[in-house]
């Protein structure tokens, strides 16, 4: 597990909030869309917060999943141009996918949450399965 010091998770994924809040600082935005999270993090990165995870984790496309979790720093260290570019490109990529118009069911949401959660755990070296069993999922 990566150290929780000086990092926070920006997310709209309730599963991440539920499980990882015990270990990490979780900034949870319930009503934010996938894109909203990208924009929030982009603005943080513009403002000099360090970016720790790639904004486009996973291959579930931005027009499918609604969940996004990104790890950023807690201190303003100065703007990193490469991270700015990453965030800009992530938004460009996000915008090129057309809405699918699919009405998702509860279990879809749950599974999209799960995938986003395991991608984040992969990044944080956090034992995803242990986290799930602890949360009795």
């Amino acid at each position, binding site marked *: 597990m990566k150290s929780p010091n000086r990092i926070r998770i920006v997310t709209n994924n309730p599963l991440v909030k539920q499980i990882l809040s015990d270990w990490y600082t979780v900034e949870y935005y319930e009503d934010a869309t996938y*894109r*909203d999270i*990208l*924009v929030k993090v*982009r*603005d943080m990165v513009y403002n000099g917060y360090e970016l720790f995870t790639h904004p486009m984790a996973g291959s579930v496309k931005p027009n499918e999943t609604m969940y996004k979790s990104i790890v950023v720093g807690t201190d303003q260290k100065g703007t990193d141009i490469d991270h700015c570019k990453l965030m*800009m490109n992530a*938004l*460009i990529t996000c*915008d090129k996918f057309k809405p699918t118009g699919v009405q998702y069911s509860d279990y879809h949401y749950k599974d999209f949450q799960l995938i986003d959660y395991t991608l984040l755990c992969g990044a944080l070296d956090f034992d995803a399965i242990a986290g799930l069993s602890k949360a009795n999922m």
Partner: protein
Amino acid sequence: MAYRVVHYINQFFANVGGEEMAHIAPELREGKVGPGMAFETAWKGEAVIVNTIVCGDSYFAEHEKEAKEQVIAWVKEINPDMFIAGPAFNAGRYGYACANIALEVKTQLGIPVLTGMYEENPGADLKDKILITPTANSAAGMRKAAPTMAKLALKLMKGEALGASCEEGYMPNGIRVNFFEKERGAKRAVKMLLNKINGKAFTTEFPMPNFDRVEPGKAIPDMSKVLLGLATSGGIVPKGNPDHIEASSASHYGEYDIEGWDRLTPEGWETAHGGYDPVYANEDPNRVLPVDVLRQMEREHKIGKLHRYFYTTVGNGTAVASSRKFAEEYAQKMLKAGVQACIMTST
């Protein structure tokens, strides 16, 4: 019935003469002239050239507006299935004329168009807007260009979907089209690598985006006569945000009149931006859009005049493609209004 084509060529290919005849105004002839023959041969009766328009290259360059109007009038009257210009090979002014007249016909009349020229011909700058077949750099390339162009033209006339640029013979136009190569990707990769190792020519299948840069605008030695435009991505809008510009992911931009405003007052203006703390901008909107000091500079003749309208967008989360489109639109407005320089502020 055969498809009907109008063909545009210059004085040289019409056998009127060389540079000394480049001044001739457009003339309309019946049937095919010169290189049109090669197209008709390839079409085997499926399409015919009903008219040929001959225009001097100098005439087009010097009287572009008149030349376009005349050609459009004729083509509109004839109402063909297809408009072909050239090919122009490496002739710069001819290439420019072919590309621009083809684009005009396409946009004004909605008729399919095609031209051909050497890749380094300045006319090829329009390859993203009209289809251009790459040709050799001299007229000797006609033998090879004619069948490619004829086949492509026939496809366009029949309304068939186009394959990839390398299959159909048009310059890559920014639209990626799938197709099947003869060899699998890994083999192509190894071949490309061998060429790269051995210093031989190779062509990437995916050109990296050209890091689209615009040449810096020319310096303006004397700003005291200049009409200065003002734009911002900081979301400054009239109080109450009458056009409802969204705090993020804006779907439109604002154009606001500052005539008579000596400074932007907090009573009259505010920010619609949702990406930063709006308190400071709302307290004093000049912190984002410096109308107050620019008015003083007007009075001091440090600038000529501040343009009556400013343009505003919200940088926060607006799709890149939209913000580009917004800027393209208001850049045209500024240009029409005679704006000579522009300050853009961002938060």
